């Protein structure tokens, strides 16, 4: 038992959890609204969008890659979802269409990175621009209103006391925690991100894994798009502007190292909560939304700084001569 406690306290998440608790405490002292049921539900619902897309991002960054296209995917998949919704008069068809679109985007990203050998930063920067442009062109920059009853339920409804998006985020968290730690796919992700050369020479299915992870990332981004579109009851071509940076910042803050192979889903979720609580707090304290950007920017820099520190300590550890006892 004491071993478990010491592991919790010595893990990187301990610091993050502490940061989250302190943040919550400070905000609740400054604003009595913070610790109300309604506000907490709001925070979780905001966090759930980032969390769902963030699961994909965690896996992609664990591979040592990046995906800048999730924000644009949110626009494209949202527009497609609402268009199909109005056409087919069915929420399920809309969902299916959105997820398919996301899968396709992920497949493109994955093939660009593996088969074409384009650096993932560049490849997804490209698809990000193309998808945003595509969303604008296809809608002529006007959002499409949803015309089917029940659609808004997905984003705004509850199952018991829990908002549906929050429930989804938790379910997916459980599912992908399992995938990352108890399946071959998860093992391969950590191995490839840790040392892609060694993974290749050990005969692991490196490229197939990378493409698959991009597809999963695309599908999850599309799911978050679907929820967003449902909440707004519209498909908006400018939805998700800057969303990719929110997601990346949150998961890196949560300890997912940009060099790949290091970090856990749990840490990433705490990172996501920290960023969401931060912006919620700023709203409650009536801080102008322009300051939100500044705060977020500062946190992104802080996150990368922490990542660099972590990398250096890892490097020191790798370069340090092994202890005498096991030589």
């Amino acid at each position, binding site marked *: 038992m004491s071993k478990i406690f010491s592991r919790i306290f010595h893990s990187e998440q301990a610091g993050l959890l502490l940061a989250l608790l302190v943040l919550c405490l400070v905000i609740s002292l400054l604003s009595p609204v913070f610790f109300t049921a309604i506000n907490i539900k709001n925070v979780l619902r905001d966090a759930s969008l980032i969390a769902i897309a963030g699961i994909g991002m965690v896996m992609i960054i664990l591979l040592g890659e990046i995906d800048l296209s999730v924000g644009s995917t949110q626009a494209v998949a949202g527009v497609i979802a609402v268009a199909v919704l109005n056409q087919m008069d069915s929420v399920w068809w809309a969902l299916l269409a959105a997820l398919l679109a996301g899968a396709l985007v992920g497949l493109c990203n994955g093939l660009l990175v593996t088969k074409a050998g384009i650096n993932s930063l560049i490849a997804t920067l490209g698809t990000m621009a193309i998808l945003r442009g595509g969303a604008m062109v296809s809608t002529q920059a006007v959002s499409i209103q949803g015309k089917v009853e029940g659609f808004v339920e997905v984003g705004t409804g509850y199952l018991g006391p829990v908002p549906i998006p929050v429930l989804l985020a938790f379910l997916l968290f459980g599912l992908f925690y399992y995938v990352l730690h*108890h399946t071959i796919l998860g*093992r391969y992700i950590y*191995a490839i991100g840790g040392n892609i050369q*060694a*993974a290749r*020479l050990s005969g692991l299915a490196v490229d197939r894994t990378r493409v698959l992870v991009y597809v999963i990332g695309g599908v999850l981004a599309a799911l978050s798009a679907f929820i967003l579109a449902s909440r707004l009851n519209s498909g908006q071509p400018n939805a998700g502007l800057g969303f990719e940076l929110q997601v990346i910042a949150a998961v890196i803050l949560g300890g997912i190292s940009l060099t790949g192979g290091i970090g856990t889903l749990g840490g990433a979720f705490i990172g996501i909560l920290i960023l969401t609580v931060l912006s919620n707090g700023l709203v409650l304290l009536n801080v102008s939304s322009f300051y939100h950007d500044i705060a977020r920017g500062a946190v992104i820099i802080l996150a990368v700084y922490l990542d660099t520190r972590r990398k250096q300590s890892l490097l020191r550890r790798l370069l340090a001569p092994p202890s005498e006892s096991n030589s």
Partner: protein
Amino acid sequence: MTPLVELVGIHKRFPGVYALKGVDFDVRAGEVHALVGENGAGKSTLIKVAAGVHDFEKGSYRIAGQAVDIRHPRQALDEGIAVVYQELELVLSLSVAENLFFGRLPHDRGGRVRWGELYDESEKLLAEVGLEVDPKTKVGHLGVAAQQLVEIARALSFAAKVIIMDEPTSALSPREIEKLFVLVARLKARGVGLVYVSHKLDEIMALADRVTVLRDGQRVACKETVDLDEDRLIELMVGRELGQGFPAAGREPGENVLEVQGLTTDQVQDISFRVCAGEIVGFSGLMGAGRTELARGLMGVDRRLAGSVVIAGVPVPANKPPAARNLGLGLVPEDRRADGVFAQLSVRENTSVAALEQFCRLGYVQGGLERRQVGGLVERLKVRTPDQEQEMAKLSGGNQQKALLARWLLKENLKVLLIDEPTRGIDVGAKAEIYQLLDELARGGLAVVLLSSEMPEILGLCDRIYVMSQGRIAAEYGRAEATPEKLLASALPNVY
């Protein structure tokens, strides 16, 4: 006559390796002094000591008879000692002139570069080495031979009295080599002392005035070239007792397990060989002969351009490492840190990564089963680690190597194990354990392919030996007929 540079009784240790054990070496004005020895004999260490890259524990360094204290490459350069390394140290994206005067471009007080002066000076230097290129050309656009001349010109710009050339002809064509020889003769006539490190004995016989032979960190001979011939040189290079600790021979080879026909990649040409079950087959050769590249080609990591690889009668599809693994091919790579270990993962995850399918039911990796099997192997191979959850980075080299071996032994259907330089950077005790283990594995029916530049382990362990040279198989020997001299003679590249 006082030598230009004198190294006396140099001792140098690295962790786990006693690289130089009291070596003497000197260079006189206007001579070519060749430095030869097998891989790992200490040549590189010695020239790096001379160049101020490595310090040394005991001994003295004299320039023109005066003891000096050289601790930095730049100091050595200022004393007129320059090295042209095998891996050229040029900045490919900069011009020839900028490379020649890298770090000391002529400039005015405001820091602006005086380009005119730079190009004039560069042209003079290039003329000295007989390289006809515009100094504004980017170095990356030049061929290897021209790049080498740029390095030599750079050495001259420091008014070098001694130029050390490390394998200068390894990447040159015969015509380029001839031009280099002319330049060497000219430098020699100007009174420059040249140190010539090479495996190509015919070049040495043609070029050198004196030859120093290193073996296991010691100088075994320093003779005038006229008193030597190639056979005598080879004898001096290898003449040592075979290392102890090799298991007795007498394995019974079974059926062919690995058959390779005409395998060709960018790095190796037309490789054909076979390996039987229960056999250890060695691939010998000098550094850069193509052993590691052959392993990469077999595994399917380097693109296969032609040829076939068949394991136990089943052809391995080209360029599909997972397929090769599934058919029972495993590779323990040469460069553990870069190509083998997942440093931040645990010993358990490192060991099981290539055999996860065995523990998997409906996509779920059965942790208990995995731990039991990994634990069994960790024990059997005597991997010294507190437990399986230990981070791989914290293990010593020898134990990492054993864990990498365990990665493949865990695989139930492993048929062929390729193991590349298995004992590099590993202490003697762990070496003997690994030899013992390879023998056991072969006796158990595994086909073992040992790729190594260390002749004692090739001769001590292998049933058959292929010698590689310049990306091809140059010769095949049975255990009985193989001698160090024969292996070395086959490994040396043919220049003309």
